[in-house]
């Protein structure tokens, strides 16, 4: 039987999409209700508080109280954002416990929020931790799945030379 070269069926990835595949991926998060457990993440009984992931200085604390940025003692720029699109709540269901310029230690409470009320208002409570200057670091994921407060999540190691 003679084999023929397959012609692409449907869409062909463009240059930009192909580039996307060449970029290293460290982790993948599914946003939304888990099909099997029917809860968004965790078991719904976790403390509704955002804690400092490491020793840092609070860079910006937004008046909408749903997010803040930290600069770690090692110079990493972190954005912690409680929920998705929660800027729209304009501070409702959120209580900011720190202010810009404050020193925080790993494990300090940063934001308290009413998890049930946020979910009831139809928002996801998944809370991204973004490294703003990730191009300056090598990132290693140390834990996945359910973690407790105090469990090391990622390790950032500054690259030798950056552009």
């Amino acid at each position, binding site marked *: 039987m003679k084999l023929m070269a397959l012609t692409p069926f449907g869409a062909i990835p463009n240059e930009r999409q192909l580039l996307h595949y060449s970029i290293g991926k460290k982790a993948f998060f599914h946003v939304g209700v888990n099909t099997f457990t029917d809860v968004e993440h965790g078991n719904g009984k976790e403390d509704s508080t955002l804690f400092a992931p490491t020793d840092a200085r609070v*860079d*910006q604390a*937004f008046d909408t109280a749903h*997010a803040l*940025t930290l*600069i770690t003692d090692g110079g990493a*720029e972190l*954005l912690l*954002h409680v929920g998705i*699109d929660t*800027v*729209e709540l304009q501070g409702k269901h959120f209580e900011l416990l720190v202010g810009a310029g404050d020193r925080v230690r790993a494990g300090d409470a940063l934001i308290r929020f009413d998890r049930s009320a946020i979910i009831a208002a139809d928002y996801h409570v998944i809370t991204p931790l*973004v490294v*703003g*200057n990730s*191009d300056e670091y090598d990132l290693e994921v140390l834990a996945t799945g359910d973690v407790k407060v105090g469990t090391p999540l990622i390790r950032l190691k500054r690259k030798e030379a950056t552009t």
Partner: protein
Amino acid sequence: VKEIVFTVGDPLGLHARPAGNLVKLAQSFKSEGTITLERSGKCASVKRLLAVMGLGVKGGDRITLLVKGEDEEEAARAIETWLKENLG
């Protein structure tokens, strides 16, 4: 140097997600860019997420972007298009 003047229409302003997308777009070009918030006079590198978020750009604010570098033409066009489509 290319200049873009833009008024933010989105009432939520340049919050985390649009800021992240803008920074990611800017980082895909070689050119450097600064974004200045007219209301406060503060400016920030358009390639730095925390700096852009720190401007606190709100709905109705006017911002000026200066783009400079070898691909400034292309970068400025892409950023202007993105602003119009996402924050117009």
